[in-house]
């Protein structure tokens, strides 16, 4: 009993306790932390390995795919080799998988910062520029040209990149992780190709065709959840896929006139809900979708209860095809175009990341005592050798040179330890770790099935670039941050709640106007205004 009691008591006082810890730490803090690096000798070409005894503390999310293989990212062959090549000792701090955001926030609040921070600074209230102003991270304006010529070269020569990385006031704060053109699109709608063939159905393009396909799957193949999706882990994905047909998107997006909109507060969204409610009523959608996570969805696929879903080219197409290669060789998948209303239309939105890969970008914190070393270390990922290493891993283990070009070995393509391709990558490359300049050759070689290549091709055909609202590149002023802090949670909570209610039919769509009014009362207009202002400043950079 006493343990229960303690736990409950602790929860009650969590806030109070936590702040106490913070108090302890912030008192220790030394106000004299110099933020500008000491003016050292001019930049000679950096020689790796660096001659240093410094140990860099790195905050980085643990890769969930290899959590069973290593307990610390420092134990992966990639990181060990990295330490050898750069000459820098690393110490990793990891959050629990799935709790990255809480951990990041508490770490910042504790004031006990590492040297390097890898994560999306857009999560910080007000974005990276606010973090710099609050004294959490360093401005790299002097540091980049001096100690990190390769990274600086990449940023300053690429206008688009430059705009995404710098702040409204022209400060450079990050070592960006860079996606290749081929790596920007990786998820979209998928269907059981073998079923389509058997039932003599074309790959659906319009919403009406989707309806026919799902209905046939249900009736002819006994798919009780003809359309399945991970409503628990990625609710936004579903809307990303189907909302485009109705010329809108979920949450914030930019319309054709350059105006920021909140998708779930538009009239177009109502048409989407109407369709989805109908599909749900007719039993075409997994009826437990708000509880479905990746494991559950995969078990639905295994039981042939789902014939259409949303997934990634690696995590779904490749891993499912691998899985059924021997046990069910007829099993086949096909990537469908993002649905539209009229045949031939270009989908309004869809999954497409930007070149600047925010979650894996690195910043140097204001507390670091090894700024020069940290900058030189991070610059390694932008050197030709570093790029090859972070993409392809270790020569003769994961790749061999063929005509001077790296080629993945069998160790990667069919791993002897039965690791999945994502696991091999996480162990032997800077996949989901340090900032990397992604090479298109890598993606090409990893897509071993033609289904993957074809799916990526059709998924890329959207207007997502024009309409996506990139939260990770804009920065909010203090005023705007306050508005976001005040209204964001309530607006999202209400919209999420009403989405399921409208789809389930426990709230009638006749009340849609009331729903819009309530969103207004919760402050959606103020939020849109704040986002619009930040977006306009971004466009002016």
């Amino acid at each position, binding site marked *: *009993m006493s*343990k*229960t*009691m303690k736990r*409950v*008591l602790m*929860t*009650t*006082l*969590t*806030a*109070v*306790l*936590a*702040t*106490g*810890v*913070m*108090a*302890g730490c*912030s*008192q220790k*803090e030394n106000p004299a932390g110099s933020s500008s690096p000491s003016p050292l000798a001019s930049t000679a070409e950096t020689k790796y390995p660096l001659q240093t005894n410094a140990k860099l503390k790195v905050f980085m999310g643990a890769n969930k795919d290899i959590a069973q293989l290593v307990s610390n990212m420092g134990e992966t062959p990639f990181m060990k080799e990295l330490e050898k090549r750069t000459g820098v000792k690393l110490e990793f701090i990891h959050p629990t998988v799935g709790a990255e*955001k*809480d951990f990041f*926030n*508490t770490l*910042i*609040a*504790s*004031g006990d910062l590492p040297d390097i921070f890898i994560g999306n600074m857009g999560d*910080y*209230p007000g974005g990276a520029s606010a973090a710099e102003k*609050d*004294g*959490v991270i360093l401005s790299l304006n002097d540091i980049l040209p001096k100690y990190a010529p390769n990274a600086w070269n990449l940023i300053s020569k690429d206008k688009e990149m430059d705009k995404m990385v710098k702040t409204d006031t022209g400060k450079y704060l990050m070592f960006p992780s860079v996606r290749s053109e081929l790596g920007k699109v990786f998820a979209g709608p998928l269907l059981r190709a073998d079923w389509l063939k058997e039932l003599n159905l074309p790959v659906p393009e319009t919403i009406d065709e989707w309806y026919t396909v799902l209905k046939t799957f249900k009736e002819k193949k006994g798919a009780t959840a003809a359309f399945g999706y991970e409503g*628990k882990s990625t609710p936004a994905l579903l809307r990303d896929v189907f909302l485009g047909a109705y010329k809108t998107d979920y949450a914030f997006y930019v319309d054709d006139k350059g105006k920021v909109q909140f998708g779930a507060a538009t009239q177009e969204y109502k048409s989407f809900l109407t369709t989805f409610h109908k599909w749900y009523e007719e039993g075409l959608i997994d*009826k*437990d979708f*708000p*509880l479905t996570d990746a494991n559950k969805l995969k078990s639905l696929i295994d039981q042939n209860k789902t014939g259409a879903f949303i997934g990634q080219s690696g995590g779904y197409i490749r891993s499912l095809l691998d899985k059924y290669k021997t046990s069910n060789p007829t099993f086949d998948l096909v990537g469908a175009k993002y649905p539209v209303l009229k045949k031939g239309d270009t989908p309004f939105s869809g999954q497409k990341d930007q070149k600047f890969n925010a979650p894996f970008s690195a910043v140097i914190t*204001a507390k670091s005592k090894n700024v020069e070393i940290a900058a030189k270390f991070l610059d390694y990922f932008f050197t030709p050798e570093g790029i090859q290493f972070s993409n392809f891993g270790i020569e003769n283990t994961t790749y061999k040179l063929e005509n001077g070009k790296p080629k993945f070995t069998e160790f990667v393509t069919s791993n002897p330890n039965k690791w999945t391709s994502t696991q091999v990558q996480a162990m032997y490359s800077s996949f989901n770790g340090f900032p990397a300049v992604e090479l298109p050759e890598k993606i090409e070689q990893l897509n071993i099935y033609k289904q993957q290549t074809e799916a990526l091709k059709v998924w890329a055909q959207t207007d997502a670039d024009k309409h996506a609202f990139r939260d990770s590149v804009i920065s909010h002023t203090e005023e705007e941050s306050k508005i*976001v*802090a*005040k209204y*964001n*949670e*309530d607006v999202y*909570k*209400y919209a*999420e*709640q009403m*989405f*399921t*209610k409208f789809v*389930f039919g*426990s709230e009638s769509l006749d009340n849609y106007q009331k729903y819009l009014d*309530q969103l207004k*009362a*919760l402050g959606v207009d103020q939020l849109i205004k704040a986002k619009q202002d930040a977006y306009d400043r971004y466009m002016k950079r």
Partner: protein
Amino acid sequence: MRFLSRLAKDLKKYRVYYMLALPAIIYYFIFSYKPMYGAIIAFKDFKPMKGIWGSPWVGLEHFQTLFHSAFFWDILLNTLKISLYSILFGFPAPIILALLLNEVRHTFVKRTVQSLTYIPHFISLVVICGLIKAFSGSDGLINDLIAWFGGERVSMLLWPEYFRTLYVSSGIWQEVGWGSIIYIAALAAIDVEQYEAARIDGAGRFKQLLHITLPGIKTTIIIMLILRLGHVMGVGYEKIILLYNPNTYSTADVISTYVYRKGVLEFNYSFSAAVGIFNSVIDFTILILANRLAKRWNETSLW
């Protein structure tokens, strides 16, 4: 002044005893009293890098944000309802189990039942919630039973009307064995002669339960109840976050989950602290009231 001089004398006289108490005093000072100082960020716009004193004062702004939130009444009522149901059904459960076990004469059976019932307490909450999901899903054990009796399958975690029942009943399953330990200990302290005397007077087992066993553990029960009432507002967020979804927000979202989303995920530490104070004040009041009532009616109390 007289107090201080008396204290000095006392300290000198009972030096050793005070030394023995010192670790406990230090513990409470460091972990319970010192952190209270951090509570002032509830009245500030807290910025970690500026520290507590460097952050600007904002007065009662965070409290106003809480009270004016469109969801304030919902989450407050949800918190109270979940907490009160937990007390109503969850508090008597370990007592009943202890009383039942007390009547079992077979030591092996008694031990086995006891061990089995407190195992769930030691399982990680994440696993527990996984089990709850598996059992209550539309193809889970509970629905198999319902279907076997001719009922209709329903995915219980999906619908708001089942949430509290699931939460409270799974809580009982989780903690009943562990909670009963203290009552079993109290039962062991009852004088066996009393039972013998009662039997000679012709009391059956039920009468013995009513007139000897229950009065024997009454004090423990009352103290445990007062302590439990002291954190009515403290419904934990972990289990709810693991179990809820947007469709069950209307019954499942409580103050602590709201604070987790708004405070921790969106970086409003000051707001979280304000809510923490609000909760503590209410809990404190309830605790005092409960203690006073217990004292008046039963002459048993915490202090």
